[in-house]
Protein backbone atom coordinates (compact mmCIF):
# COMPACT_ATOMS: atom_id res chain seq x y z
CA UNK A 1 0.00 0.00 0.00
CA UNK A 2 1.53 3.36 -0.99
CA UNK A 3 1.59 6.50 1.16
CA UNK A 4 -1.60 8.00 -0.26
CA UNK A 5 -3.56 4.77 0.10
CA UNK A 6 -2.38 4.40 3.71
CA UNK A 7 -3.40 7.98 4.37
CA UNK A 8 -6.85 7.61 2.80
CA UNK A 9 -7.46 4.45 4.81
CA UNK A 10 -6.42 6.25 8.02
CA UNK A 11 -8.80 9.11 7.25
CA UNK A 12 -11.69 6.78 6.45
CA UNK A 13 -11.07 4.82 9.65
CA UNK A 14 -11.07 8.03 11.67
CA UNK A 15 -13.56 10.19 9.79
CA UNK A 16 -15.97 10.18 12.73
CA UNK A 17 -13.28 11.76 14.88
CA UNK A 18 -12.59 14.50 12.32
CA UNK A 19 -16.28 15.25 11.77
CA UNK A 20 -16.98 15.46 15.49
CA UNK A 21 -14.09 17.82 16.13
CA UNK A 22 -15.29 19.97 13.22
CA UNK A 23 -18.83 19.96 14.64
CA UNK A 24 -17.68 20.99 18.10
CA UNK A 25 -15.41 23.80 16.96
CA UNK A 26 -17.65 25.44 14.35
CA UNK A 27 -21.06 27.11 14.31
CA UNK A 28 -22.40 26.29 10.88
CA UNK A 29 -22.20 23.78 8.05
CA UNK A 30 -19.95 25.91 5.83
CA UNK A 31 -17.38 26.44 8.58
CA UNK A 32 -17.55 22.76 9.43
CA UNK A 33 -16.86 21.71 5.86
CA UNK A 34 -13.94 24.14 5.69
CA UNK A 35 -12.52 22.84 8.93
CA UNK A 36 -12.80 19.21 7.79
CA UNK A 37 -10.99 20.16 4.60
CA UNK A 38 -8.26 22.06 6.44
CA UNK A 39 -7.77 19.21 8.93
CA UNK A 40 -7.35 16.68 6.13
CA UNK A 41 -5.04 19.02 4.23
CA UNK A 42 -2.85 19.55 7.31
CA UNK A 43 -2.91 15.84 8.15
CA UNK A 44 -1.66 15.05 4.66
CA UNK A 45 1.01 17.76 4.86
CA UNK A 46 2.35 16.42 8.14
CA UNK A 47 1.80 12.74 7.39
CA UNK A 48 5.53 12.25 6.77
CA UNK A 49 6.27 13.74 10.19
CA UNK A 50 4.16 11.07 11.85
CA UNK A 51 6.79 8.61 12.97
CA UNK A 52 4.58 6.29 14.96
CA UNK A 53 6.10 7.47 18.24
CA UNK A 54 2.49 7.86 19.29
CA UNK A 55 -0.57 5.99 18.06
CA UNK A 56 -2.24 7.08 14.84
CA UNK A 57 -5.33 8.19 16.74
CA UNK A 58 -3.25 10.31 19.16
CA UNK A 59 -1.51 12.01 16.23
CA UNK A 60 -4.79 12.52 14.38
CA UNK A 61 -6.38 14.05 17.46
CA UNK A 62 -3.45 16.38 17.99
CA UNK A 63 -3.41 17.64 14.41
CA UNK A 64 -7.19 17.93 14.18
CA UNK A 65 -7.50 19.80 17.47
CA UNK A 66 -4.55 22.08 16.68
CA UNK A 67 -6.08 22.97 13.31
CA UNK A 68 -9.48 23.54 14.95
CA UNK A 69 -7.92 25.89 17.51
CA UNK A 70 -6.07 27.70 14.72
CA UNK A 71 -9.27 28.06 12.72
CA UNK A 72 -10.98 29.46 15.80
CA UNK A 73 -8.28 32.14 16.01
CA UNK A 74 -8.96 33.34 12.49
CA UNK A 75 -12.64 32.46 12.22
CA UNK A 76 -13.80 36.07 12.58
CA UNK A 77 -11.68 37.04 9.64
CA UNK A 78 -13.14 34.72 7.04
CA UNK A 79 -13.61 35.94 3.50
CA UNK A 80 -14.39 33.08 1.19
CA UNK A 81 -13.86 29.38 0.82
CA UNK A 82 -13.93 26.93 -2.01
CA UNK A 83 -17.23 25.13 -2.49
CA UNK A 84 -17.55 21.78 -0.74
CA UNK A 85 -19.46 18.66 -1.46
CA UNK A 86 -23.14 18.91 -0.50
CA UNK A 87 -22.93 15.47 1.06
CA UNK A 88 -20.43 16.73 3.60
CA UNK A 89 -22.42 19.86 4.37
CA UNK A 90 -25.64 17.98 4.98
CA UNK A 91 -24.55 14.65 6.30
CA UNK A 92 -26.63 14.99 9.44
CA UNK A 93 -29.76 16.21 7.70
CA UNK A 94 -31.14 12.81 6.88
CA UNK A 95 -33.86 12.19 9.48
CA UNK A 96 -31.52 13.29 12.21
CA UNK A 97 -33.14 16.58 13.19
CA UNK A 98 -33.71 15.35 16.75
CA UNK A 99 -30.04 14.47 17.03
CA UNK A 100 -29.13 17.83 15.56
CA UNK A 101 -31.22 19.61 18.18
CA UNK A 102 -29.56 17.68 20.96
CA UNK A 103 -26.19 18.28 19.37
CA UNK A 104 -26.86 22.02 19.36
CA UNK A 105 -27.64 21.92 23.09
CA UNK A 106 -24.47 19.91 23.58
CA UNK A 107 -22.46 22.47 21.62
CA UNK A 108 -23.89 25.36 23.62
CA UNK A 109 -22.96 23.62 26.84
CA UNK A 110 -19.36 23.08 25.97
CA UNK A 111 -19.07 26.42 24.17
CA UNK A 112 -18.76 28.07 27.58
CA UNK A 113 -15.64 26.05 28.36
CA UNK A 114 -12.20 27.39 27.51
CA UNK A 115 -10.13 25.89 24.68
CA UNK A 116 -8.24 23.48 26.91
CA UNK A 117 -11.30 22.24 28.81
CA UNK A 118 -13.20 21.85 25.56
CA UNK A 119 -10.48 19.58 24.16
CA UNK A 120 -10.29 17.56 27.39
CA UNK A 121 -14.04 16.99 27.62
CA UNK A 122 -14.20 15.94 23.99
CA UNK A 123 -11.48 13.36 24.47
CA UNK A 124 -13.16 12.13 27.63
CA UNK A 125 -16.49 11.74 25.86
CA UNK A 126 -14.69 9.81 23.15
CA UNK A 127 -13.68 7.25 25.78
CA UNK A 128 -10.04 8.24 25.97
CA UNK A 129 -8.26 7.26 29.16
CA UNK A 130 -6.66 9.92 31.36
CA UNK A 131 -3.25 8.75 30.12
CA UNK A 132 -4.28 9.16 26.47
CA UNK A 133 -5.82 12.58 27.17
CA UNK A 134 -2.60 13.61 28.91
CA UNK A 135 -0.54 12.54 25.88
CA UNK A 136 -2.73 14.31 23.34
CA UNK A 137 -3.14 17.50 25.33
CA UNK A 138 0.36 17.66 26.77
CA UNK A 139 -0.42 17.89 30.49
CA UNK A 140 0.16 15.38 33.32
CA UNK A 141 -2.30 12.55 34.00
CA UNK A 142 -3.01 13.87 37.49
CA UNK A 143 -3.73 17.29 35.98
CA UNK A 144 -6.27 15.66 33.64
CA UNK A 145 -8.08 14.24 36.68
CA UNK A 146 -8.13 17.62 38.41
CA UNK A 147 -9.36 19.35 35.28
CA UNK A 148 -12.10 16.78 34.75
CA UNK A 149 -13.44 17.50 38.25
CA UNK A 150 -13.40 21.24 37.55
CA UNK A 151 -15.12 20.77 34.19
CA UNK A 152 -17.86 18.68 35.78
CA UNK A 153 -18.36 21.42 38.35
CA UNK A 154 -18.46 24.12 35.66
CA UNK A 155 -21.06 22.18 33.67
CA UNK A 156 -23.17 21.60 36.76
CA UNK A 157 -23.09 25.32 37.63
CA UNK A 158 -23.94 26.22 34.07
CA UNK A 159 -26.85 23.81 34.14
CA UNK A 160 -28.16 25.36 37.39
CA UNK A 161 -27.84 28.90 36.01
CA UNK A 162 -29.79 27.94 32.92
Amino acid at each position, binding site marked *: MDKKETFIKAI*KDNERLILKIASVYTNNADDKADLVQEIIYQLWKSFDAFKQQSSLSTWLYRVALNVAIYQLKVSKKRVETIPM*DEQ*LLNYQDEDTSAIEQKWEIFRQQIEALNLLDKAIIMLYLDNKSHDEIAEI*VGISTSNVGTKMLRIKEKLRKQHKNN
Partner: protein
Amino acid sequence: MELDELKNIWDTAHDATNTQQILNTKMIEKMTQTRFKSRLQKVVFHELIGALMCIAAVAYMAFNFDKLTTPFFQGLGIVTALLLMVLPIVSLMLIWQINSLGNVSQPIAETIKQFATQKLRFIRFQQLSVVAAYILIVFVFLLMPKFTGGRSLNDNKYFWAFAVAFGYIFLYFFSRMVIKYYGNALQQAEELLRELEG
Protein backbone atom coordinates in the same frame (compact mmCIF):
# COMPACT_ATOMS: atom_id res chain seq x y z
CA MET B 1 -26.25 19.58 31.71
CA GLU B 2 -24.58 16.71 33.52
CA LEU B 3 -21.66 14.84 32.03
CA ASP B 4 -23.76 11.71 31.57
CA GLU B 5 -26.21 13.60 29.37
CA LEU B 6 -23.38 15.03 27.31
CA LYS B 7 -21.95 11.56 26.90
CA ASN B 8 -25.33 10.31 25.79
CA ILE B 9 -25.61 12.98 23.06
CA TRP B 10 -22.02 12.37 22.01
CA ASP B 11 -22.63 8.65 21.61
CA THR B 12 -25.92 9.23 19.76
CA ALA B 13 -24.12 11.46 17.27
CA HIS B 14 -21.46 8.78 17.02
CA ASP B 15 -24.03 6.15 16.09
CA ALA B 16 -25.65 8.48 13.56
CA THR B 17 -22.39 9.23 11.75
CA ASN B 18 -21.34 5.60 11.87
CA THR B 19 -24.27 4.54 9.74
CA GLN B 20 -22.89 6.29 6.69
CA GLN B 21 -19.48 6.76 5.14
CA ILE B 22 -19.15 10.51 4.61
CA LEU B 23 -15.67 10.94 3.21
CA ASN B 24 -15.00 8.98 0.05
CA THR B 25 -11.62 8.44 -1.58
CA LYS B 26 -12.18 11.09 -4.26
CA MET B 27 -13.12 13.74 -1.67
CA ILE B 28 -10.12 12.96 0.53
CA GLU B 29 -7.77 13.13 -2.46
CA LYS B 30 -9.25 16.50 -3.44
CA MET B 31 -8.83 17.80 0.10
CA THR B 32 -5.16 16.84 0.22
CA GLN B 33 -4.52 18.90 -2.91
CA THR B 34 -6.50 22.07 -2.28
CA ARG B 35 -6.42 24.33 0.70
CA PHE B 36 -9.37 26.67 1.06
CA LYS B 37 -8.64 30.26 0.13
CA SER B 38 -6.96 32.44 2.68
CA ARG B 39 -9.35 34.01 5.11
CA LEU B 40 -6.74 36.51 6.10
CA GLN B 41 -6.94 38.58 2.96
CA LYS B 42 -9.46 41.02 4.40
CA VAL B 43 -7.78 41.75 7.72
CA VAL B 44 -4.33 41.93 6.15
CA PHE B 45 -5.78 44.21 3.46
CA HIS B 46 -7.02 46.69 6.09
CA GLU B 47 -3.71 46.60 7.90
CA LEU B 48 -1.86 47.06 4.62
CA ILE B 49 -3.97 50.11 3.73
CA GLY B 50 -3.10 51.62 7.12
CA ALA B 51 0.58 50.78 6.63
CA LEU B 52 0.58 52.31 3.12
CA MET B 53 -0.95 55.53 4.44
CA CYS B 54 1.78 55.70 7.08
CA ILE B 55 4.47 55.04 4.47
CA ALA B 56 2.96 57.74 2.22
CA ALA B 57 3.11 60.19 5.15
CA VAL B 58 6.73 59.23 5.81
CA ALA B 59 7.58 59.66 2.11
CA TYR B 60 5.92 63.08 2.10
CA MET B 61 7.95 64.09 5.15
CA ALA B 62 11.17 62.79 3.59
CA PHE B 63 10.61 64.77 0.37
CA ASN B 64 9.86 67.91 2.38
CA PHE B 65 12.44 67.39 5.05
CA ASP B 66 14.24 70.63 4.01
CA LYS B 67 11.22 72.56 5.32
CA LEU B 68 12.12 71.44 8.81
CA THR B 69 14.69 74.14 9.42
CA THR B 70 15.59 73.82 13.08
CA PRO B 71 17.15 70.79 14.85
CA PHE B 72 14.05 70.60 17.08
CA PHE B 73 11.70 70.17 14.13
CA GLN B 74 14.13 67.85 12.34
CA GLY B 75 14.32 65.64 15.42
CA LEU B 76 10.55 65.74 15.75
CA GLY B 77 10.20 64.78 12.07
CA ILE B 78 12.53 61.81 12.48
CA VAL B 79 10.74 60.54 15.60
CA THR B 80 7.36 60.93 13.87
CA ALA B 81 8.59 59.07 10.79
CA LEU B 82 9.99 56.26 12.94
CA LEU B 83 6.70 55.91 14.81
CA LEU B 84 4.77 55.91 11.54
CA MET B 85 6.95 53.12 10.18
CA VAL B 86 7.46 50.98 13.26
CA LEU B 87 3.83 50.82 14.46
CA PRO B 88 2.26 49.34 11.29
CA ILE B 89 5.22 47.01 10.71
CA VAL B 90 5.00 45.59 14.24
CA SER B 91 1.22 45.31 13.90
CA LEU B 92 1.55 43.37 10.63
CA MET B 93 4.21 41.13 12.14
CA LEU B 94 1.99 40.32 15.12
CA ILE B 95 -0.99 39.58 12.89
CA TRP B 96 1.17 37.32 10.75
CA GLN B 97 2.41 35.55 13.90
CA ILE B 98 -1.12 35.06 15.25
CA ASN B 99 -2.29 33.65 11.95
CA SER B 100 0.57 31.28 11.28
CA LEU B 101 -0.37 27.69 11.94
CA GLY B 102 2.81 26.46 13.60
CA ASN B 103 3.52 22.83 14.43
CA VAL B 104 0.23 20.95 14.10
CA SER B 105 1.64 17.79 15.68
CA GLN B 106 2.58 19.39 18.98
CA PRO B 107 0.49 18.88 22.16
CA ILE B 108 -2.63 21.03 22.23
CA ALA B 109 -1.69 22.71 25.52
CA GLU B 110 1.41 24.07 23.77
CA THR B 111 -0.68 25.48 20.91
CA ILE B 112 -3.16 27.08 23.31
CA LYS B 113 -0.30 28.59 25.31
CA GLN B 114 1.23 30.08 22.15
CA PHE B 115 -2.18 31.31 21.08
CA ALA B 116 -2.85 33.04 24.42
CA THR B 117 0.66 34.55 24.54
CA GLN B 118 0.39 35.90 20.99
CA LYS B 119 -3.05 37.30 21.72
CA LEU B 120 -1.82 39.04 24.88
CA ARG B 121 1.13 40.49 22.96
CA PHE B 122 -1.16 41.79 20.22
CA ILE B 123 -3.67 43.33 22.65
CA ARG B 124 -0.92 45.04 24.64
CA PHE B 125 0.56 46.36 21.42
CA GLN B 126 -2.84 47.75 20.37
CA GLN B 127 -3.15 49.51 23.72
CA LEU B 128 0.36 50.90 23.30
CA SER B 129 -0.58 52.06 19.81
CA VAL B 130 -3.40 54.16 21.27
CA VAL B 131 -0.91 55.90 23.59
CA ALA B 132 1.45 56.36 20.62
CA ALA B 133 -1.44 57.88 18.65
CA TYR B 134 -1.90 60.55 21.36
CA ILE B 135 1.80 61.41 21.08
CA LEU B 136 1.75 61.30 17.28
CA ILE B 137 -1.14 63.72 17.05
CA VAL B 138 0.82 66.31 19.07
CA PHE B 139 3.84 65.82 16.81
CA VAL B 140 1.69 66.19 13.69
CA PHE B 141 0.16 69.41 15.01
CA LEU B 142 3.62 70.79 15.61
CA LEU B 143 4.97 69.71 12.23
CA MET B 144 1.97 70.60 10.10
CA PRO B 145 2.61 74.35 9.75
CA LYS B 146 6.19 73.65 8.65
CA PHE B 147 4.93 71.54 5.78
CA THR B 148 2.21 73.98 4.82
CA GLY B 149 4.29 76.88 3.59
CA GLY B 150 5.83 77.74 6.93
CA ARG B 151 2.79 79.62 8.12
CA SER B 152 2.61 79.84 11.86
CA LEU B 153 -0.25 78.15 13.64
CA ASN B 154 -0.94 81.48 15.27
CA ASP B 155 -2.03 82.80 11.85
CA ASN B 156 -5.25 80.94 12.26
CA LYS B 157 -6.58 81.44 15.74
CA TYR B 158 -9.14 78.67 15.31
CA PHE B 159 -6.61 76.02 14.26
CA TRP B 160 -5.70 74.76 17.70
CA ALA B 161 -9.23 74.91 18.98
CA PHE B 162 -10.57 72.80 16.13
CA ALA B 163 -7.64 70.50 15.51
CA VAL B 164 -6.92 69.64 19.13
CA ALA B 165 -10.57 69.26 20.01
CA PHE B 166 -11.32 67.08 16.99
CA GLY B 167 -8.16 65.00 17.34
CA TYR B 168 -8.54 64.33 21.02
CA ILE B 169 -12.27 63.67 20.95
CA PHE B 170 -11.67 61.12 18.20
CA LEU B 171 -8.81 59.53 20.11
CA TYR B 172 -10.79 59.50 23.34
CA PHE B 173 -13.61 57.49 21.79
CA PHE B 174 -11.21 55.34 19.79
CA SER B 175 -9.18 54.42 22.87
CA ARG B 176 -12.34 53.63 24.84
CA MET B 177 -13.44 51.36 22.02
CA VAL B 178 -10.05 49.61 21.93
CA ILE B 179 -10.00 49.08 25.70
CA LYS B 180 -13.57 47.77 25.74
CA TYR B 181 -13.04 45.57 22.67
CA TYR B 182 -9.89 43.95 24.00
CA GLY B 183 -10.78 43.98 27.70
CA ASN B 184 -12.57 40.64 27.73
CA ALA B 185 -10.16 39.00 25.32
CA LEU B 186 -7.24 40.12 27.50
CA GLN B 187 -8.85 38.69 30.63
CA GLN B 188 -9.64 35.38 28.91
CA ALA B 189 -6.12 35.02 27.52
CA GLU B 190 -4.58 35.79 30.90
CA GLU B 191 -6.85 33.29 32.65
CA LEU B 192 -6.03 30.60 30.11
CA LEU B 193 -2.30 31.18 30.55
CA ARG B 194 -2.61 31.09 34.34
CA GLU B 195 -4.49 27.81 34.09
CA LEU B 196 -1.89 26.30 31.76
CA GLU B 197 1.02 27.44 33.84
CA GLY B 198 -0.58 26.60 37.17
